[in-house]
């Protein structure tokens, strides 16, 4: 079964991700996961997440993917036992010590090998399979022939990133942050130094450029999904535990629709173009397909002087309730009477609507919604429901 795998930075984002069609969610606990400085999940919240996901027949994966220093092993065994006891479906691991501990404790937790391990060949996959891994999260650099070869030899479940930020480096092979910020990249402290600006000198110390950039565009594999399924990918992963609910909802909405249309053979060029436009609009960096079908080149890199970085104000509000023809919305960005907006949600591909009246919480008529998170109401007979999103009108299909 094909899986759409979404990130969750906290319990609220997890609920949004499940609502928008994720088949499985990944996140970190308070320790042992990369994104050390995100909010992450307490033990109680992990349990709540597991119960919620399982009630919807969905899965939960917890990242235990730092590369450990000896001092970090404290409490790891108890944590792994806890995750096992509360029926977390799998942990994502990069350090063999964690695999070894799981094996010695005889835990039923499935072990997925994190992309931090940077697996590109079948021999590496077979090594981890022998250690009890049931899934490989492929290196972001995997080409199609690598995917096919690994699948054929290992028969392991294969997971790959399809959307979001890309590392410049092979994952796990970068300590630029350690040098430039004293934060440990491989324990969740990545400061994205590869996105910084550098001066480039030749070996004789002649300045070549004082505006050197090295980071790639973000990943967007939305036009290659069929090919990826055919090559043996089982789980399609979206990056972004630090992203907003609007970003998560938009990206998931698009990919959920792509997968559903592939399964019903209804994905046509109009939809593909529409989805591509929405995805491009949602990110604040340029996106591009990378690796898999084509080795990247200079056009897949990100150069600051030419970037079209959008400060995204598209997210106008989230639907809280739709009752008796009154839609209650929590505002996120300015909108006013006369604006044409778009609703989208799990049951709405896209619905254009002209704002012809706005009411405040006391049902007093107002002309603009201009306070962040203010509660507004609209009288309209629209098929929207809780957690549906309202955005600026972007594109038509």
């Amino acid at each position, binding site marked *: 079964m094909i899986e759409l795998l979404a990130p969750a930075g906290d319990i609220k984002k997890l609920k949004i991700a499940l609502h928008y069609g994720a088949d499985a969610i990944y996140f970190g606990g308070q320790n042992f996961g990369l994104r*050390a*400085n995100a909010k992450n999940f307490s033990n109680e919240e992990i349990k709540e997440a597991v119960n919620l996901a399982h009630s919807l027949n969905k899965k939960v994966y917890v990242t235990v993917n*730092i*590369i*450990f*220093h*000896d001092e*970090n092993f404290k409490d790891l065994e108890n944590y792994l036992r806890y995750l096992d006891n509360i029926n977390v479906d799998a942990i994502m691991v*990069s*350090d*063999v*010590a964690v695999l070894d*501990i799981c094996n010695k404790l005889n835990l039923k937790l499935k072990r997925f090998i994190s992309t931090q*391990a*940077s*697996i*590109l*060949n*079948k*021999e*590496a996959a*077979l*090594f*981890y399979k022998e250690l009890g891994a049931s899934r490989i999260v492929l*290196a972001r*650099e*995997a*080409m199609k022939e*690598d995917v096919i070869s690994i699948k054929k030899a290992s028969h392991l479940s294969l997971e790959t990133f399809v959307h979001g930020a890309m590392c*410049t*480096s*092979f994952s*796990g*092979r*970068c*300590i*630029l942050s*350690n*040098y*430039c910020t*004293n*934060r*440990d990249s*491989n*324990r969740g402290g990545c400061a994205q130094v590869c996105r*910084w600006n*550098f*001066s*480039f*000198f030749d*070996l004789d110390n002649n300045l*070549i*450029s004082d505006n*050197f950039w*090295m980071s790639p565009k973000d990943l967007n594999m939305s036009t290659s999904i069929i090919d990826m399924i055919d090559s043996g990918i089982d789980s399609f992963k979206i990056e972004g535990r630090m992203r907003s609910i609007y970003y998560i909802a938009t990206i998931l909405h698009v990919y959920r629709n792509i997968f559903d249309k592939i399964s019903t053979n209804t994905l046509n060029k109009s939809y593909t173009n529409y989805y591509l436009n929405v995805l491009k609009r949602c990110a604040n960096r340029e996106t591009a397909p990378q690796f898999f079908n084509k080795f*990247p*080149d*200079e*056009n897949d890199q990100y*150069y600051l002087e030419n970037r079209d970085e959008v400060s995204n104000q598209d997210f106008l509000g989230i639907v809280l309730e739709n009752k008796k023809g009154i839609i209650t919305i929590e505002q996120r960005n300015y909108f006013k009477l006369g604006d044409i907006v778009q609703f989208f949600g799990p049951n709405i591909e896209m619905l254009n609507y002209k704002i012809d009246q706005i009411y405040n919480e006391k049902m007093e008529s107002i002309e603009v919604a201009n306070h962040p998170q203010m509660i507004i109401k609209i009288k309209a007979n629209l098929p929207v429901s809780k957690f549906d999103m309202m955005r600026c009108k972007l594109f038509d299909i």
Partner: protein
Amino acid sequence: MKNNKILIYLNNLEDIAKYKEIGITNFLFALEDFSIGYQTFKLNELANLDINVYLNINIIMDTKKIAKFKKLINKLTFVKGIFFEDVGLYNILKKTKIPLIWNQAHFVINSKSINFWLERVESASLANELTIDEIKYILNNANKSLIMSVYGLNIAMYSRRYLLSYFNKYNNLKIIKNGFLNVNNQDNSFYIIENKNGTALFYNKAFNYIPYLNEIDDQKIKFYLINHPHINFEIVNDLINHKEVISEEKFLKTKTIYKLEG
């Protein structure tokens, strides 16, 4: 630090005679097509040298690359050991008699993983991002002797992308394959070098742990590794004779931050 326990990551075959004169006979080589960041050599250049040859295969291998390496295995009988980054390499070499050294970039930093690997391989090469206390702890708890880098430049990043070529092509500049990147508004600089396997960045200030070796139990050390991509005999000689060499102690005395407070 006895000279017979020094391992030099060599970039120049002509220096071998000088090293042998002072009792250094262990050398690490980057193998053509299978390494990044260092001067590479072909197998036939290394096969008949009267020295102990170790190979460093420090790339992550894709399907084609590992298939290509498999074809070399029967030509490796003269090699005293192989440092490997890609665990796939371990998988195809584990049944050979070639001694293997776990050298998986920044992963070799805790005693549990090291001992896991020491059940399977000859030794492990400690990563550089460790404090002196961590190094001592690991050495005391490791089940075999280990390799410790004592002088050189540390690889700070390894990308599959051709970062210099991309930038130069995009800007219509002459393609050059190495140079220096200075972080704007910081005192940090990186040596950058590109080859067919991608791009490597080295932190451009040498580390030198030799002054601290009196704190280290020599019995726990298999080799003291000198791994500067631009090493030469004169520098090594100065190091051995404890002459002052420009260097810094980046991680040896300062822990990196795991989680920010507050």
